[in-house]
């Protein structure tokens, strides 16, 4: 059983120049907001700052770096997570690299398998391969009928694993993917393959699926009570399947900003609320198109705070979110205290720190990374995780 938490650094890599005023002119913050507001020269500077943050996180002792993918998102400049992972491979030496994850239902599965294999070889076997269904917008932007998303996801998952574990050439003739000559040359270093993680925002059927496949489940920022419920779904399903889940099967993402003083951290951390009213704004058909998710999954998501990955949720203010430890800001002592409460309550094997947002100043973020790495993470590594009942 994993008895110590591993702490990962995460950034959405936002394009922080977008304002509420810009967004208010359009009918939605994602599929309706045009890229005329994107300046590639500014993005060039931002990307390189985010890459410096990765290198620093590795240097100061983060156990890993997590990355993700979104399309049509001003708040996430990563429409290709594997490209970001390639950068992480080169600018870091020790950190694990959690791709969380490839949106496999909208991308070619054989190519996904090949890219992840390349990354595992680049990094010397540091890749954790997460697969996601994606928000509904990823399916819509990818031209996929949202009612096919889950079935495609499952078929793509099986095909990718086959690419890693079955020497070719072989045929694969499923419902959605048809190949008669699959023969990838590159395979991962890790055997039988990199660990597969499954992140989610709240769909119980996704949690059940993860548990049935014994893939660790990463919850992305739900309130603690809801997270406990979903963790319970995982544990119950694991028992049905016949394995004993532990902290190694569960991770949790939350927003954290550390500064030299509490006041400074509270002030900088206010930027976590950047464009809070626009992330999921738009017709219901963008975030919850017919056929994409069950009504129960929707209910769970409605009880999750709105911001984070731009899906459904309920509006909570900055102070409310701080009060329930959904956003944690403070000096190292405060952050250690609050993260300890979270870790003792949820017992996650992995804690993902969503560490910057919007126009947060690069120097404030790098200072946060330094303090987290040098003071907070060592304290968290002292905590002993408990087995799951």
């Amino acid at each position, binding site marked *: 059983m994993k008895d110590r938490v591993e702490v990962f650094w995460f950034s959405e890599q936002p394009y922080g120049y977008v304002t509420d005023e810009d967004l208010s002119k359009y009918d939605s913050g994602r599929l309706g907001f045009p890229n005329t507001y994107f300046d590639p020269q500014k993005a060039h500077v931002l990307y390189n700052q985010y890459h410096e943050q990765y290198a620093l996180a590795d240097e100061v002792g983060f156990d890993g770096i997590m990355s993700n993918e979104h399309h049509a998102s001003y708040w996430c400049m990563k429409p290709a997570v594997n490209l970001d992972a390639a950068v992480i491979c080169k600018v870091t030496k020790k950190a694990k690299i959690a791709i969380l994850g490839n949106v496999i239902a909208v991308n070619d599965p054989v190519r996904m398998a090949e890219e992840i294999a390349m990354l595992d070889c680049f990094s010397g076997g540091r890749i954790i391969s997460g697969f996601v269904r994606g928000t509904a917008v990823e399916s*819509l932007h990818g*031209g996929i*009928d949202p009612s096919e998303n889950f079935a495609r996801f499952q078929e793509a998952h099986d095909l990718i694993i086959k690419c890693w574990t079955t020497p070719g050439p072989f045929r694969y003739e499923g419902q959605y993917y048809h190949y008669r000559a699959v023969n990838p040359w590159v395979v991962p270093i890790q055997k039988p393959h990199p660990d597969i993680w499954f992140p989610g925002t709240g769909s119980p059927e996704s949690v059940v699926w993860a548990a049935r496949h014994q893939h660790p489940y990463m919850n992305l920022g739900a309130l603690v009570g809801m997270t406990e419920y979903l963790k319970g779904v995982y544990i119950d399903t694991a028992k049905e399947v016949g394995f004993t889940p532990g902290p190694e099967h569960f991770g949790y993402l939350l927003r954290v900003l550390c500064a030299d003083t509490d006041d400074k951290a509270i002030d900088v951390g206010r930027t976590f609320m950047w464009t809070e009213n626009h992330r999921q704004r738009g*017709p219901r*058909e963008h975030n919850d198109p017919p*056929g994409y998710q069950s*009504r129960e999954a929707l209910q769970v998501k409605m009880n999750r705070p709105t911001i984070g990955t731009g899906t459904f949720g309920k509006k909570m203010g900055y102070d409310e979110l701080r009060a329930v430890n959904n956003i944690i800001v403070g000096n190292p002592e405060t952050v250690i205290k609050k993260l300890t409460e979270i870790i003792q309550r949820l017992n996650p094997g992995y804690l993902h720190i969503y560490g910057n947002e919007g126009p947060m100043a690069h120097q404030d973020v790098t200072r946060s990374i330094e303090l987290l790495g040098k003071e907070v993470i060592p304290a968290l590594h002292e905590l002993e995780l408990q087995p799951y009942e």
Partner: protein
Amino acid sequence: MAVTPHHSDELMQIADVSIQVLKGGEGEPLLLLHGAGGNPGWLAYHQALAQRCTVYAPSHPGYDRSSRPDWISTMNDMAHFYRQFIEELSLAPVHLMGFSMGGWLAAEIAAMCPAYLKSLVLVDAAGIRPEVGEIAEILMVSQDVVKKLRFYDPTQVPDYDTVVNRQLTPEEEAVQWRNREMTSRLCWKPYFHNPKLPAYLRGVKVPALIVWGKYDAIIPLNCGELFQQALSNSRLHVIDRCGHSPALEKPQEFLQTVQAFLSKPN
């Protein structure tokens, strides 16, 4: 859907589908194929058509109370189901009338088994990609947007508030949600059309009436013109000051035109 003395509402077992069918009237069989939103129920125009025909108004597999077997996920699959429907109920030769998405389905059935048809009526039908304009986005937008696109002038729609714009119960909303999921499955891509349909319709000589609202903001009038070109024994009737749903927006002209055709399709 309410059952009145004018029609019945039953679940029939056809092939491997439990299909909800509204049926009423007497006369030659007329099979009505509904559009993307599901079966509108037994409305005034159904009752009018039932004066001279036995009207069958099923809910397609996957809609309303009808079941959906796994094998039905494309419009071609749906056409195959309806071929079996016509056979099992011995409806041939049947008058076939399709509205909007149901018009696409009717055209596919006509291409598949023209000998089963006595006549074909396409009302603001999907199925052919326009050369002028676009089929409007109705899947990734709110239903309020779709309602606004549907009519040229809602004030001329009789019973607009009770038929079109009424508040749905939670159960009805759940049914609508499932209906929309099935429409996504059938119509996502290519979007509301079959690029091969004009080629499939070549040589189909079934007498056909194509009815179109001149100001259809969902499926452009150009699609009606293309259907007319594809169907050698067809004529196009354009209704002025009318949008996508002439049966609701211009019921008198719609019924006069259609009933005259049905009584003498040749």
